[in-house]
């Protein structure tokens, strides 16, 4: 029996060796490589699929309205099917298995670093080939209406400035604060500098909020997430990536200072880690947490948490900074995997529709995301009046800054999270030494990823 099993394994291994020896070392795309397409001669495909990650009643309803509207009104008879394909991570893993096959969806949601990874296999459609097309392109006035930084975010210098996506929405890291509690502590505004932040958080840890609906009192809870790492580094005037040298700068003086600062807050008992998923949100809502930092897309959830919790006056502000604020802006874009010109064109037609002003207004108001066009923000006056916290975060957009859009960033993010957790947890840990190792790891990973470009 054992002999048979070993024989079987041996056969498999030999077969694998033979297969590998016979194999070509260059990838063979299964779909035709695209040249310059004359779009006027292409008829859009009739049926296309859009993979997204949107859940929740409001977002699902808005997405359905958008898709139904598109299917009913587009002049080409295109029928788009929007499919929830899991979270960002699920979509990413599914896509990796499908790149350059006919089974890819026609439109896919993805963060810029994920799209950059897909493009290592030369598998994404360059929208530059159609965006200025006289028939199907986007008028220059519309292009100019996009907030420039958002519009530029999907152009990849790493890939000869190809446009591999278009932003339908964005959100931003903001600091949520309990205004009523701040007043009780003797302050009339959120902290503008790290020193003020330290003072307020430590005071809050000692003096609970009178209207709290639960036990406990804490100044700040840090959720272990790379976007928080980026936010605090930005707040101390640094960056986590140097676009000119294409190198991570995770050990920059700003990052080290930021985390020495946080390490001190933890050591003094003024801050602690978030204990479970969205635990900071529920503690904030219950009035037991003075500050928390998170995405502006969480505004509806914070509103609900406060309304159902301690019902206090609250708002959002920029993170306390050592100079001019710099806020981490992020958001997934919609991209088109390479398929056939007909499918690509139909997908592009939907993306144009999805980013048109009326649809953007509908989507932004339903989802709580920021719109990506200036004219849409102007149309949302009533909404902003009714939602002052949304308006407050929108006003911070001028400080927007982005995380790197490079392949392999997800892997580096994981390591950043491990190191930032270790540093705040252990006051004795040398932040500079830990971040030096982290930076070395990041750049090694990046170099390995970029090797694939140089093949």
């Amino acid at each position: 029996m054992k002999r048979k099993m070993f024989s079987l394994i041996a056969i498999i291994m030999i077969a694998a060796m033979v297969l590998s020896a016979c194999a070509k070392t260059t990838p063979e795309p299964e779909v035709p490589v695209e040249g310059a397409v004359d779009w006027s001669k292409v008829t859009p495909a009739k049926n296309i699929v859009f993979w997204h990650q949107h859940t929740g009643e409001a977002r699902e309803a808005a997405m359905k309205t958008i898709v139904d509207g598109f299917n009913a009104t587009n002049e080409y008879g295109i029928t788009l099917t929007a499919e929830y394909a899991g979270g960002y991570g699920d979509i990413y893993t599914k896509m990796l298995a499908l790149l350059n096959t006919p089974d890819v969806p026609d439109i896919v949601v993805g963060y810029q670093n994920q799209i950059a990874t897909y493009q290592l296999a030369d598998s994404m459609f360059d929208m530059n080939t159609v965006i200025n097309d006289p028939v199907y392109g986007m008028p220059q006035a519309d292009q100019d209406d996009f907030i420039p930084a958002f519009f530029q975010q999907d152009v990849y210098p790493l890939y000869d400035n190809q446009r591999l996506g278009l932003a339908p929405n964005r959100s931003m890291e903001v600091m949520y604060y309990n205004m009523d509690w701040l007043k009780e502590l003797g302050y009339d505004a959120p902290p503008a500098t790290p020193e003020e932040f330290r003072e307020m958080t430590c005071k809050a840890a000692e003096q609970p909020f009178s209207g709290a609906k639960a036990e406990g009192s804490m100044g700040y809870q840090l959720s272990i997430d790379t976007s928080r790492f980026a936010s605090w580094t930005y707040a101390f005037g640094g960056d986590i990536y140097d676009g000119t040298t294409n190198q991570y700068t995770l050990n920059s003086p700003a990052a080290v200072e930021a985390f020495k600062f946080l390490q001190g807050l933890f050591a003094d008992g003024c801050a602690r880690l978030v204990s479970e998923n969205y635990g900071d949100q529920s503690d904030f809502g219950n009035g037991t947490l003075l500050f928390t930092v998170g995405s502006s897309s969480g505004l509806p959830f914070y509103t609900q948490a406060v309304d159902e919790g301690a019902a206090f006056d609250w708002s959002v502000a920029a993170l306390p900074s050592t100079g001019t604020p710099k806020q981490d802006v992020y958001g997934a874009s919609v991209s088109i995997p390479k398929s056939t010109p007909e499918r690509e064109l139909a997908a592009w037609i939907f993306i144009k529709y999805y980013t048109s002003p009326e649809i953007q207004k509908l989507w932004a108001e339903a989802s709580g995301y920021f719109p990506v066009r200036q004219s849409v923000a102007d149309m949302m006056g009533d909404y902003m009046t009714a939602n002052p916290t949304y308006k407050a975060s929108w006003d911070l957009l001028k400080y927007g800054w982005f995380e790197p859009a490079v392949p392999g960033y997800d892997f580096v993010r994981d390591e950043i999270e491990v190191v930032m957790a270790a540093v705040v947890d252990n006051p004795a840990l040398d932040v500079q030494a830990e971040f030096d190792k982290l930076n070395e790891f990041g750049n090694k990973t990046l170099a390995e990823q970029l090797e694939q470009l140089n093949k």
Partner: protein
Amino acid sequence: MTEAVISVKPKKTGTTLHKLRTREQITGYLFVLPALIVILVFGLFPIGYSIYMSLFNWRVTKGAYVGGKNYLLIFGNWTNLLITLAGIALIVGAFWIWNNAFKSLSKGQTIAKVVAAVIMILGGVIFITGWGYMYDSGNQNFLNSLIVTLYYALGTVPAEVILGMILAFLLYQDIIGKDIFRMIYFLPYVTPSVTSAVVFQIIFSLRETSIANMIIGWFGISPQKWRFEPKPLLNLLGLDLSGFLAGPSLALISIMIYGIWSFVGYNTVIFLAGLGNIPKETYEAAEIDGATRSQQFRFITMPLLSPTTFYLVLIGFIGTFKAFNHIYVLRTPSAGDSVITTSLLIFDNFYKANQYGIATAQAIVLFVVILGLTLAQNKLIGERVFYG
């Protein structure tokens, strides 16, 4: 005429028999064909293709053929691997000598045991030396993940089996509502692991008021960080141990508790089936002979359940080495590498680092490790199984 018939008849019978046998063979093959195709396509092909991928610098796209380089990244160099394997071979040899050698000599067994012990110590030293070399020059993350996986297996499987056996024995008695209890104990196994793991996130959260902290608080123990604690439990208890001897982190132990909770019910049900196969007369005879309940359990139940126990241990070890979902959900960045089992590491290398070639090489090594452990268990425990 008659002669002619007689002379032809045996020939006809032979042909018919041959045809019948052929037809039977074909029918047999046709019956096994669907299963064979499924096993080939979904079982053997992926293994073969993984081996194939592991021989390339395969990332998002297939790169150059690199032969065994992806394996070398794990071991550092082939010599390290050979030293480690030599250590294992000596331990296996010592085991054989312990059981089989010098049987014909008087005092043969004593000699065999002394020789085996010496060889085993030597094998252990060589194994540890080889492992140390691999750790220095190979992939530390991978080797560390194997240790974490081993902790996880050793921390869960014996507990699952022992608790499962005890529960099965209790539920086998004539107690009121035993069917309901059976269902309750089986529920964790059928609950989707991702869902129940999220509940365990809350139970083992950092909060001082978390359920786990409340429970230990009843015994006067101060709140712990549970899933967020990378320090080994023994260190937390004040023992100054390091390396392998320090044992699993508290974070891993939290995950182990989930694993035990989840699989005890399954083991209980399987043990109940095993108990059902033990003849009642055996217990009656033992009772007449004056055996107590604990003696009955020790000398009848346990031996006659040994085939079931063997099966559960075998399946349990294989399962723990492949465990993924709940560990993925329960891990935290704060726990660092202390909860990264090999299957998680392979997943991260595959999907986050896009190192398909390296990840598949690691998967193949894990496959071989599981195979080796299964064979070892088969040898160590299989021979002690009592089949009646």
